[in-house]
């Protein structure tokens, strides 16, 4: 469901935000955190980079509007990723701008972690690899 929403949401985002072309994965992640999240959810997660090859990033959410009225997950559903919709939205939006990415929850406050952390791993496009080999 999140993927379907994300594929449509990115058009609305590009129309309303007028951001220019991004030149690096870290710039893309910054735009997602500081512009998109702010525009749609009113929060600004902080961005950290997880590896030296600069294609794995984390968004740390201090406040998550989607869980505002939730105290705990129901019994028997302790593995439920309550906000997995967000991961799908990010993945769908990135795919519509021709960027393949894996987006998952690394930490979740509803499961007892201290913060909510979404990990974005940009996957290298096969065409890019071919281009580098030719170099």
């Amino acid at each position: 469901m999140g993927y379907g929403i994300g594929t449509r949401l990115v058009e609305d985002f590009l129309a309303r935000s007028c951001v220019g072309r991004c030149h690096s994965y870290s710039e893309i992640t910054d735009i997602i955190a500081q512009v998109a999240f702010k525009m749609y959810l009113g929060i600004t997660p902080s961005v950290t980079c997880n590896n030296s090859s600069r294609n794995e990033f984390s968004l740390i959410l201090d406040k998550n509007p989607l869980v505002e009225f939730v105290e705990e997950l129901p019994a028997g559903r302790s593995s439920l990723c309550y906000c997995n919709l967000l991961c799908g939205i990010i993945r769908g939006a990135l795919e519509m701008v021709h960027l393949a990415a894996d987006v998952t929850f690394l930490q979740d406050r509803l499961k007892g972690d201290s913060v909510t952390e979404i990990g974005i791993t940009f996957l290298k496009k096969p065409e890019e690899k071919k281009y580098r080999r030719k170099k």
Partner: protein
Amino acid sequence: MRARSAGRSLGAGGRRMADAVLFEFLHTEMVAELWAHDPDSGPGGQNMSLSVLEGMGFRVGQALGERNPAWLPPSSSPWAPQAWPGDPPASAWPKCLPLPPRLSRETLAYREELDILKFLCKDLWMAVFQKQMDSLRTNHQGTYVLQDNSFPLLIRMASGLQYLEEAPKVSSRW
């Protein structure tokens, strides 16, 4: 799932957290998802999907009412919701659902039918769609017609006949 007690106003004066367009996208996906999962594509399956959608809308409407204290009389008022003698104890209620306040005709702030309908047209519609309903008509015999000329969830489908079959699914949730 245990939910926090009412504390935030969702009305026009309250702080809104998410952009309105997110709700439209989410609603579209929910309808598509519930419809797609039903293996029975005949009238029986369609009725099941429609009743599931309607049930979800019912629960949302309940939650909106519980969470907007502006719609209930103040707690100091004699008309504030009270626990009734016949109520089950709070421990008997499943922990995954919030305990609804028990309201009766006597404790409601709106005592006339027309007041309730006006509340639907003005407050509820404003909280959910950021606009009021366009007209309310009645035959003074218990039948009311609520009219919205630009219903936000259907307006994008309304320009042609392409989505004529899909429209009832989208509107059933309300």
